[in-house]
């Protein structure tokens, strides 16, 4: 039976992530990254320490020099990263890159890339979106067959860590029309390849993303990840994994906003009493707590479903993305509202949480997108 509690190994990962990130990351670090105009969007020493802790290898199987831990374990780190607003290439490399290769890579690709991911020697980014609102079925970037392999042309936007990653996983069309589900293939492309132009865009969460223009970019047959025209299934799996981990991060953000707000309700006095003594606020705090509890259950369930290769994983991912988005929206809005004027100031950290939350909500489909998906999976 899959239990909805952490096992020993997962708890250990959680505890060490909490200890490390509380100490090392936190909103103040992200503030520093923002104010220094750091184009990477993360502090390199933080990433180096994550590497030292072995985090990039969490999902990499042991035979490829990784730790071979569970998705649940990785989810614990993502949740803590949400609480501490830790910005790093972890999500795009250790979650998306590692999953893509483990799931769809051939032996040669796994041998070449997975140990390097685990060692923190190589970073990845997933270049899939072509629209500001996620639509995985809309892929216009083409990979035309040539004598030597493929030639890729098109544009990808809002690529997370796209400006700093060493390698890109690019979804491109090898057959069919713009919105066909079939006919998509994935390619592993070095970001330095000829024909790639990357433009950095500043985002409100202080984590820049890249627009990546590909013009006749060459890819060998050996760079194709998974079967020709069959990339759609891999992509769907990758997006499921991505969304589940984003919900873990959103859960962390919600939890942290709640914790800070609760402390303020006890501390701030108006009308001669703590504002937390007003029933109007008590009930809203109680309701928010309930929502976060519900969210927690969904997140661990979805993570376990990934580990179990459950056929319902995609449905669960969409369900919990909806829940996590709504909870994060509530938690961040309530955090500002219940802090009053001070909640609106940049000096106060809650702004960093709400900005990150909305971006994480929108990435790879917001609650509306996943409501539609959920209804689709459910047959109505």
């Amino acid at each position, binding site marked *: 039976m899959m239990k909805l509690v952490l096992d020993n190994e997962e708890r250990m990962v959680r505890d060490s992530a909490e200890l490390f990130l509380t100490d090392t990351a936190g909103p103040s670090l992200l503030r520093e990254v923002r104010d220094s105009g750091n184009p990477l969007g993360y502090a390199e020493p933080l990433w180096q320490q994550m590497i030292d802790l072995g985090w990039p290898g969490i999902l990499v199987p042991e035979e490829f020099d990784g730790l071979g831990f569970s998705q649940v374990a990785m989810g614990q780190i993502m949740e803590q990263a949400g609480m501490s607003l830790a910005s790093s290439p972890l999500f795009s490399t250790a979650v998306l890159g590692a999953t893509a290769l483990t799931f769809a890579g051939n032996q040669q690709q796994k041998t070449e890339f997975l140990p390097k991911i685990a060692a923190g020697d190589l970073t990845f980014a997933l270049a899939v*979106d072509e*629209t*500001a*609102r*996620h639509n995985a079925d809309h892929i216009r970037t083409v990979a035309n067959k040539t004598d030597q392999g493929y030639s890729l042309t098109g544009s990808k*936007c*809002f690529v997370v860590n796209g400006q700093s990653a060493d390698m890109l996983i690019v979804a491109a069309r090898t057959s069919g029309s713009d919105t066909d589900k079939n006919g998509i293939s994935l390619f592993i492309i070095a970001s330095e390849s000829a024909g790639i132009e990357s433009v950095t*865009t*500043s*985002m*409100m*969460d*202080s984590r820049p*993303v890249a627009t990546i223009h590909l013009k006749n970019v060459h890819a060998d047959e050996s760079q194709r990840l998974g079967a020709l025209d069959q990339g759609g299934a891999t992509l769907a799996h990758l997006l499921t994994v991505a969304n589940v981990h984003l919900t873990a991060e959103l859960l962390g953000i919600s939890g942290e906003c709640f914790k800070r707000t609760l402390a303020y309700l006890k501390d701030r*006095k*108006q*009308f*001669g009493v703590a*504002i937390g003594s*007003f029933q*109007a*606020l008590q009930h809203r705090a109680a309701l928010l707590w309930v929502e976060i509890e519900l969210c927690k259950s969904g997140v661990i369930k979805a993570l376990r479903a990934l580990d179990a290769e459950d056929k319902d994983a995609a449905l669960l991912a969409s369900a919990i993305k909806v829940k996590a988005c709504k909870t994060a*929206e509530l938690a961040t*809005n309530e955090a*500002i*509202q219940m802090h*009053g*004027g001070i*909640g*609106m*100031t*940049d*000096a106060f950290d*809650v*702004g960093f949480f*709400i*900005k990150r939350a*909305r*971006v994480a909500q*929108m*990435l790879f489909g*917001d609650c*509306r*997108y996943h*409501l*539609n998906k959920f209804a689709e999976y459910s047959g109505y």
Partner: protein
Amino acid sequence: MQDDTAFRQETRTWLAANCPASMRSYMPVGETCSGGRHFQFISDDQKVWMQRMAERGWTAPTWPTEYGGGGLTKQHAKILHDELNAITARSPLTSMGLSMIGPALLEFGSEELKQQHLPAIVRGDIRWCQGYSEPNAGSDLAGLQAKAEDRGDHFIVNGQKVWTTYADKADWMFCLVRTDLNSAKHSGISLVLFDMTTPGVSARPILLISGSSPFCETFLDDVRVEKNQVVGDINAGWSIAKYLLTHEREMIGGIGSTTAQKTVGARAIDAVGLREGRLADEILRGEVADWEIDFMSHQLTTERVRDESTSSSLGNASAMLKLYGTELNKRRCELLLALEGLDAMRWDESSEARLWLRSKGNSIEGGTSEIQLNIIAKRILGLG
């Protein structure tokens, strides 16, 4: 009294001749005309538009003509408003003078104060800021501690204000101070006016989550305030302060609708597109329609409440309009963010995200949503 049709026709003709073409467009963020000694007009058109409207008193359409106002009846003011909207005219002047201290002066000010301040507000010469909130007096406004010591013909004011919107750009402040330290909390408060260049006044901008700094911490150190600059009676400021708040709340309640703007529905079509005549995302389609209906309901309620009102203030009904209007504007901004997706979350100057972040303050400024609910529950419903 001129009849409505004639007034409408005359207004339309005048606007056609006098509203510059560039002032007949949706107003981008940051292009509000606030007036004041140091105001930088974005264009000659903006200046001309403000001046022409001010000459007719139409920056303050219902104020008496003797104080520079338009002297219009409520009905004619409504016609003017409709005609301005019909050509998507920008507001010629938006200020706390017009929406807050002006109405309070009209109701409670001495003749001398009215003559001194009202025409300058109508003309956009003087920009005002509001010194109400303090670090320990937010929702509990009557807990304010700034104190004014009686020195015969003047007061010496000491204290700290916070969240003072545009204190760094304003020319004058209307400010709540404690003039009697020994009386009960709500007594002993006075509303006083002073020039921001008075020695001892200093304002330090506070950076907002939206990345701009509209509000300030304001320090008052031995600030001299003449006694003739007290609005109404000394120690009777609390009820005047509350009267002023009803006007502030009415103004903030209209936050999503004061300037002509594209409807959410139209923006949804631009951003998401239509599929067989329906918005391409079913869920968003429902949310947009739901918002538009609530918006319409709020507009109609504002209109009805104004039509019903026989006094110079909407009173407790302003709590309803403020509550609902600000929650609506926050929803609107969340919807626009959702419609435009990651595009709206880019961090550049004109980013939709900045407006969205700023909107979070709507349900805090001018009395929080919780305080509005308390007012409705207590004063309208008689609970507690």
